[in-house]
């Protein structure tokens, strides 16, 4: 009898689609301001981040990516812009106009020294600007040739080769980052990123690039000068393996949190890439953040996909993985979230949330 009851409870839990778990998570009250900043040019907000003075940086997909014609090879540039606002939301300036790697915005982060880092999944590059917006460092390389839709009459095999970025070296993208020459997910060395998604740093200034949601499925570690140290992770679903990395964050102790979206979990590693634990009850983590301050928290967004208004809640967790609460849901109204791709959490209760669906960054204030 006991076994039957257990079975029925389990069946009921399955039938309601896991909502038993959701019911047990307390709701966090919050305010959201969708009007504090207004983009000079409208588009999908892929990244949002603040610096120590409260300035806000938004990396948005706006305008159009342009393919050059009449060149030796089809080349692709533009299509995204990086904007800076002051703490009151007033537009300050644009950074990186016309920069080679600005192509398809994926993320922006500000390091502890207030340098601004953009992650671009179109150019497969990570670019570091100083606090005033001057160029400092680039990791990864944009492909020299990008295949676009073939014209009529092109044999079927040719566009396929072009799509892989067959460059003048007869390889892949002329050495530029369409994943380098390694097998997909083979844990390749160096900085041949394939759709990198995020970047973070440990206290020593080492750089960790989430690489990414293409075929590499690895974390690449660099010194603070930008020299390659090591890589960890492969494609897969086992421990230390990834399927579509959407975000990365580090805590003060140097632990690295990786949003392993395709496996619906956050994996935690030490700075050498040794697996420590995983958090698997927060849906599909599409954006994560570790807050500043002496008592740190982890935030993770279970963002909706482009064809639904399901999910959309953001979880607040202890660094141990214990859920503190959640807030928000998917939608298009102010205070709702549409395909959240970025969370900034400089302090525990003051967040910025960047939305791909709703083309905006909202300032979110959590209430006790």
């Amino acid at each position, binding site marked *: 009898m006991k076994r039957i009851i257990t079975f029925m409870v389990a069946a009921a839990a399955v039938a309601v689609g896991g909502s038993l778990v959701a019911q047990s998570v307390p709701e966090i009250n919050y305010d959201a301001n969708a009007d504090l900043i207004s983009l000079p040019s409208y588009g999908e907000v892929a990244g949002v981040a603040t610096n120590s003075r409260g300035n806000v940086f938004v990396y948005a997909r706006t305008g159009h990516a342009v393919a050059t014609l009449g060149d030796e090879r089809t080349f692709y540039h533009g299509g995204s812009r990086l904007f800076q606002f002051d703490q009151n939301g007033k537009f300050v300036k644009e950074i990186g106009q016309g920069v080679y790697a600005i192509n398809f915005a994926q993320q922006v982060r500000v390091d502890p020294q207030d340098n601004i880092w953009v992650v671009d999944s179109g150019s497969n590059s990570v670019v570091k600007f100083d606090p005033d917006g001057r160029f400092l460092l680039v990791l990864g390389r944009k492909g020299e040739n990008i295949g676009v839709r073939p014209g009529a009459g092109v044999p079927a095999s040719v566009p396929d080769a072009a*799509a892989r970025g067959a460059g003048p070296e007869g390889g892949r993208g002329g050495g530029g980052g369409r994943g380098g020459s390694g097998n997909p997910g083979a844990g390749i060395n160096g900085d041949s990123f394939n759709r990198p998604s995020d970047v973070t740093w440990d206290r020593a200034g080492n750089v960790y690039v989430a690489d990414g949601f293409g075929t590499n499925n690895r974390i690449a570690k660099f010194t603070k000068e930008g020299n390659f140290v090591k890589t960890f992770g492969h494609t897969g679903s086992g421990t230390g393996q990834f399927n579509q990395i959407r975000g990365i964050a580090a805590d003060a102790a140097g632990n690295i949190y990786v949003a392993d979206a395709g496996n619906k979990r956050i994996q935690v590693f030490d700075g050498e890439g040794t697996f420590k634990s995983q958090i698997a009850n927060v849906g599909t983590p599409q954006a994560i953040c570790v807050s500043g301050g002496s008592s740190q928290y982890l935030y993770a967004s279970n963002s909706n996909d482009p*064809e639904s208004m399901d999910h959309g809640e953001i979880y607040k967790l202890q660094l141990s993985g214990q859920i503190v609460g959640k807030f928000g849901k998917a939608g298009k109204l102010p205070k709702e979230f549409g395909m959240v791709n970025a969370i900034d959490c400089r302090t525990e209760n003051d967040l910025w949330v960047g939305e791909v669906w709703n083309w905006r960054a909202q300032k979110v204030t959590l209430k006790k």
Partner: protein
Amino acid sequence: MIRRLTAVFVALFFATPVMGQNVSGPAKARATTPEIPFDSAPNFLKLPPGLYMGEGTGVATNSKGHVFAFTRSGETRLFEFDQNGTFVKEFGVGSYGFAFAHAVRVDKDDNIWAVDEGTNVIQKFSPDGKLLMVLGKRPDPLEQVTTMPGGGQYSGANRPYSFHRPTDIAWDPQGNIFISDGYGDSRVVKYDKNGRFVKSVGTRGNGPLQFSTPHAIAVDGKGLVYVADRGNSRMVVLDNDLNQKAVWDTIGAPWAVCISQGPHQYIYSSNSFPTGNNFDQASMTGEIYKMELDGTVLGRFGKAGHGSKEFSAVHQMDCRNADEMYLAEITQWRVQKITLHPQTTRATGGR
């Protein structure tokens, strides 16, 4: 010989990759419908030096009589003019959602909605130009560089929150949103006023609840939905839950449709002169029909051509006031303001 020539013309026509431009003859109501006299102010919109209209694909007015023109210029741009045609401002400069203009509409609160078939995005702007809502998702260019889809032909994907070359937008009195979508889908999609998906109907074809390039859409004060089923040369009337109520097939190919405001609403439909500038079709297209909401044809006006009082591929119409209309034309880069002088409101049984 004649037969051979005909065969060549037919072959040429089918080689043209443009949907919905089949003109097999004049509209059935043409010969029996009385003409309505009208005047035109073709240079009504005054652009500042350095700004140019391109293809006039969208035009709409707000409650103050301001005119919004959505045009395929060097970039797709959205301009606002006042009631005298003086330039006021531009909306969404450099937006991610402007690539290939299709239609612009103004809702009852004077918000401006721009339907862009290049990006598959519909943007809602406040009267002062602030972005209020985005419907649809632009395909990531990242995806396109490696897996470029075909040329935007019919796919029937029928996705709840993505469009495939959408064509137009309308609202019922409750604020529900209706979208004709479009070239790549053949359907009508309904959302609530907050952008939440309600339902969609339609596949490609010419049967009940099928469409062939639903090219424009309008909703009347009772919430009935009028779909300009251009490729099938018919207007399809749906109820508010998207059940089919009626089909009108005597008014040619409806490229553009609008419904006037006020207690007695009229519906206008344009059997536009196709964009190919094939003047063989000029004698049997170009006119606009004025109708009661039950489909009774009251009159027609205009003819194909580039001149004043002629219409050159009318692509969108505004008829906030029943006798004062704005027409956006593709193959003459302009918006015409026209004033109708209807002589009679007597129904003529043109159905």
